[in-house]
């Protein structure tokens, strides 16, 4: 008997027992779909955060004001106000070989009003270097220039989202917005960076750093030349560690530090690996849930295969009594299990991809876009596992039945 013949027998047998076939496939479909959807979502979350971090710029080092101990009390990171605009200028002008550019920033929140529209958003005081270091592009108008910084001009470059929410499609260039009751002239609009996560970069308003400190900061920052972070771009990826070392030396000298740094230096890579640790846990968790689904699906397959064995043992007896060899029987059951696994697997993959897509199109945390990534590895893992379970529990009882004397198989209860 040929292979085509045994495939035909298997297909006839499957279509003669549609409910049993459908139930078996259902187990495989559920298992495969769950793994693919959940792994896809986890992977998507990871990529969203990675691209967020990478969109900040390349080869970056971030210097933040560090924790400080005062009278035995250690305050949290950033509590000390130790980084100044002068530090940034010093870093930029001491001719450090591994440092390409330095971009300090001073952040505050501000109430922004234009006509009847009113939003509360983040105001970032920057210098011209910020545009290249942090990878911003102006889609209309121009960026803040050195003259604006020196003159403490009241000019602003707005994020892409600000333009839509505040200006309703009107051309914002040349218009005046009020930030904390100070009038600012809009001179530029940034290109959208997309993403979300840690404070959407499209929701910011950039103004000259000196203007922030002179007119917008509250409390201790007002009138100071303190900055909240300095971004340093290394000359290339291989120079990042050297840049960290050089930057730290300059700052220690300027701050006259002997024991404990009053600033923190982190590279973009540190951020990435921290974020990856978090998303890795997320993916692991989702993978665990998916694994349980796969297990449940596998048990479903196993149950239906074992339950149908009584009927099938009699069937095997009949088939043997009228001339089937053991190999005929095995070929039939192998083909049946393979057909079910393949079809169930394909439907499961499609279902999983659809579910992943539906989940990613659901709005999560405002503008955060989660593009599910259905990976080849999860497809292979899920399909192979489901197929293996289907094949084993489909064939093993059949193998035992096929090895019986036909009369014992016929009498099987």
């Amino acid at each position: 008997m040929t292979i085509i013949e045994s495939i035909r027998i298997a297909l006839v047998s499957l279509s003669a027992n549609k409910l049993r076939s459908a139930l078996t496939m259902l187990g495989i479909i559920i298992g495969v779909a769950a793994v693919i959807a959940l792994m896809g979502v986890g992977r998507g979350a990871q990529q969203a955060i990675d691209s967020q971090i990478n969109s900040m710029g390349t080869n970056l080092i971030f210097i933040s004001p560090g924790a400080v101990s005062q009278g035995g009390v250690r305050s949290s990171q950033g509590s000390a106000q130790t980084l100044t605009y002068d530090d940034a200028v010093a870093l930029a002008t001491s001719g450090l070989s591994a440092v390409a550019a330095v971009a300090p920033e001073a952040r505050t929140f501000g109430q922004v009003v234009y006509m009847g529209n009113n939003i509360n958003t983040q105001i970032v005081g920057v210098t011209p270097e910020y545009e290249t270091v942090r990878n911003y592009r102006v889609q209309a108008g121009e960026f803040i220039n050195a003259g604006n910084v020196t003159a403490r001009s009241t000019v602003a470059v707005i994020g892409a989202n600000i333009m839509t929410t505040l200006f309703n499609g009107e051309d914002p260039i040349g218009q005046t917005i009020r930030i904390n009751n100070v009038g600012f002239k809009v001179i530029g609009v940034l290109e959208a960076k997309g993403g979300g996560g840690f404070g959407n970069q499209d929701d910011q308003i950039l103004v000259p750093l000196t203007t922030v400190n002179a007119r917008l900061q509250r409390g201790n920052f007002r009138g100071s030349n303190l900055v909240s972070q300095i971004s340093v771009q290394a000359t290339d990826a291989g120079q990042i560690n050297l840049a960290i070392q050089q930057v730290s030396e300059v700052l220690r000298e300027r701050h006259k530090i002997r024991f404990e740094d009053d600033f923190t230096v982190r590279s973009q890579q540190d951020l990435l690996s921290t974020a990856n640790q978090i998303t890795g846990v997320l993916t692991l968790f989702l993978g665990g849930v998916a694994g349980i689904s796969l297990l449940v699906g596998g048990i479903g397959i196993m149950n239906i295969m074992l339950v149908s064995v009584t009927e099938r043992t009699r069937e095997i007896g009949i088939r043997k009594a009228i001339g089937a060899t053991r190999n005929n029987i095995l070929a039939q059951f192998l083909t049946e299990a393979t057909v079910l696994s393949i079809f169930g697997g394909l439907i499961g993959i499609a279902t999983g991809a659809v579910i992943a897509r539906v989940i990613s199109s659901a709005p999560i945390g405002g503008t955060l876009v989660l593009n599910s990534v259905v990976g080849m590895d999860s497809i292979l893992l899920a399909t192979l596992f489901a197929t293996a379970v289907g094949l084993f529990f489909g064939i093993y009882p059949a193998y035992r039945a096929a090895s019986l004397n036909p009369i014992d198989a016929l009498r099987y209860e």
Partner: protein
Amino acid sequence: MIELENVYKIYRMGDSEVHALDGVSLKIAAGEWVAIVGPSGSGKSTLMNVIGCLDQPTSGSYKLDGVEVARMSDRELARVRNRKIGFVFQTFNLLPRTTALANVELPLVYAGVRDRRQRAIAALERVGLGDRLHHRPNELSGGQQQRVAIARALVTNPSIILADEPTGNLDSRAGAEIMELFHRMHTEQGLTIVMVTHDPDIAAQCERVVHIRDGKILSDERNGDRRRVPGIAEQLTAPAIPVPEPVATGAVR
């Protein structure tokens, strides 16, 4: 063609041994119609299963057409069951949810025959079911199901038909129809028929009756010329059930 010599079949039930066949020697020649008769538990079905290569004897020799069955491989046994022997069971043993035609085609599939559809249709017409080709077993009466089973047994043109209580699950009218089919198969095609029964009326219609009890042959006698029990033929011409004869005779070559 069937030669059993000192055949034993022993089942172990825990510590005790059950001798289902206890030294049976039997010869059946080609073209004979033999009834194996005995009470339940006498070993008659076991004997039949051994003859049909569905079961292997514990010891002793069984030669089919001069070939020792014990030496055959799984493949050869399957071939014998497929080509030489046709089975008819008490419980029909048709594949459920499968049409009559597909059930009858099945032995031909395993035989690797090409024109199986025509041959299966011809076999079903021979048993008078030419109009029930696409019915499933649960849509057929017991008598019709047994006729499908007989068509399945005949379709590969075997030389031996083995029937285990073929009328046991049927009412007397359907049983009479089935017996009539066996008569025709025997007389028109010269088939060897071995039939297990505990019904003396059925046994009386066979040429030779072998009595078996406790795994041993008690008696082996000829009925002389094959006799028909009066009344059966008359019943068959009764109008209530469509009689297979007209269709069947036309199909026999």
